[in-house]
């Protein structure tokens, strides 16, 4: 997946301004930047939630910018939301089942149920399967976001701060999960503020500031990048 000159503005203010990016096959790409840098907005554009005012996004040989979220999901790009947006009236299993049922065209009911169960097991949520979302702990809710997206069987998974609010042990678990997801051949692009996590699991990192791309490189290069250190790491 790659983006060229992706831009959007809200009321005259450019929230994302001419961003170029590439996500390579089987890669874990980190997306960092201070609050308001346009990270989630970029996610929203990729997932079709917002329409870019300029530039284009190419995925699997075709242009996907301009498509609606459901088409983009069916094309193989799934995402999580920063604030968990699950279905409160469904059990954990049904939440995941919905992803399996609608995310991939042409699936039978039985196939979807199988995908849902294996995804629950893979993400370690099987013990909560029959419970409602409000009754499970925060770390499990974060995992449920991932599981629901994963059940759509994407080729690209976009994770928006799935580690926020977790304790160190849970962050370790989440990192292991992300690695396993990549191990299944899914490319991952993740927004994260937990620096330790992002530095250790990402193959490559891009940094945004005021909607502009300011750095692109391996984690070691990013930590040495002066501009990033100044405006991002320096602040933290």
């Amino acid at each position, binding site marked *: 997946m790659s983006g060229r000159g992706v831009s959007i503005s809200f009321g005259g203010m450019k929230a994302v301004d001419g961003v170029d990016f590439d996500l390579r096959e089987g890669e874990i790409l980190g997306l960092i930047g201070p609050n308001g840098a346009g990270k989630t907005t970029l996610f929203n554009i990729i997932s079709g*939630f917002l329409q870019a005012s300029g530039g284009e996004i190419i995925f699997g040989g075709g242009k996907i910018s301009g498509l609606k979220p459901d088409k983009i*999901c069916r094309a193989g790009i799934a995402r999580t939301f920063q604030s968990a947006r699950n*279905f409160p*009236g469904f059990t954990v299993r049904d939440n995941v089942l919905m992803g399996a049922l609608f995310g991939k065209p042409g699936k039978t009911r039985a196939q979807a149920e199988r995908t849902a169960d294996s995804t629950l097991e893979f993400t370690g949520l099987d013990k909560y399967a029959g419970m409602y979302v409000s009754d499970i702990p925060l770390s499990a809710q974060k995992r449920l976001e991932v599981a629901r997206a994963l059940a759509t069987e994407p080729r690209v998974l976009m994770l928006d701060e799935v580690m926020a609010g977790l304790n160190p042990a849970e962050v370790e678990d989440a990192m292991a999960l992300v690695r396993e997801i990549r191990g299944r051949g899914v490319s991952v692009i993740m927004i994260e503020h937990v620096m330790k996590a992002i530095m250790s699991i990402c193959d490559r990192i891009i940094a945004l500031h005021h909607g502009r791309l300011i750095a692109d490189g391996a984690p070691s290069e990013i930590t040495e990048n002066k501009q990033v250190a100044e405006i991002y790491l320096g602040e933290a």
Partner: protein
Amino acid sequence: MAFIKRVLPGTARGRLHLGALICVAAFLAVFPGVSRPYTTIFTASILMYIILSLSWTFFSGKTGYISLATAAFYGIGMYIEAILGRYIPLPAAMLVAAAAGFLIAAGIGAITLRLRGVYFTIFTFGLVLLLQNLVLWIEIRFFHTKGRIVTSGDFTFVYYCILAVFVILLIAAVIMRRSRFGLALECIGQNEDSAAHIGVDTTRTKILAFAVSAAPVSAVGAAMATRVGYIDPNIAFNLLMSFMPVLMAIFGGTHSLYGPVFGALVLTLLEEKLIRGYQEYYMIIFGAVMIIAVSFMPKGAAGIAESVFLKLRRRLRPRSHPRNDGGARDE
């Protein structure tokens, strides 16, 4: 077989509901034979309101997009019977009406369901008045008349036609509940953005659901037209027919099939008692019921009944865990 197995409720509680349903349907089927004509007519209007509020709940209750177009589809049904009643039997006219309601709703949905909910409400609200004015204009301009005589039918037959719509609607609602389409709709109701992001084509699902919900309303409109004898645009497109189903559904509760049925039953009986001589008071009561239901009964009367039931059961059997009895999924 697999299909039947999937549709039939798997739990004891589910089977109890199904049994109750079959009993009610059987009772309603023999009802005209044992009751006075007036009671049959009255029962038919209760059924009519139940169908209207169930249809409303099917779309608006689930998705939260509040439709005020019920009167429009009902009136379209009435006009189709008024025009075709002389040439084809009632069931055929009802089918035509259902198809017309479906298509018109699909058109309206295609324009408004891409937008925020408030536009949809505004548009459906105006639609009733638009049709009222448009039909009146057409009638006067091209047919030089204000109203039409509707061929009246044998009322027991009309009753059975309405009962048939009711039974079909219930069966469809039960099948729909765990179907792909029903689940997509459920997802939209719970979180529309999330639904879109896991691959649900939200716009198409909403449009289809709205169109489906209009079909029974138009069919019943066609059937009820034979009872009124004469219709004009003010009778056919009466805004009250938009408000009543909403009120009945909200009062009864939109989270289960029982809610709208209960709401329609209670409020139709109330209407029957108060309509003569106390019309203003009955409308004031309706207004108050609407406000109270929205502000204090988020799950309606059915929700209250259920929580009372659960509380009682917990008191009687203190060690049971109602959450895990497996029946909860079918709710």
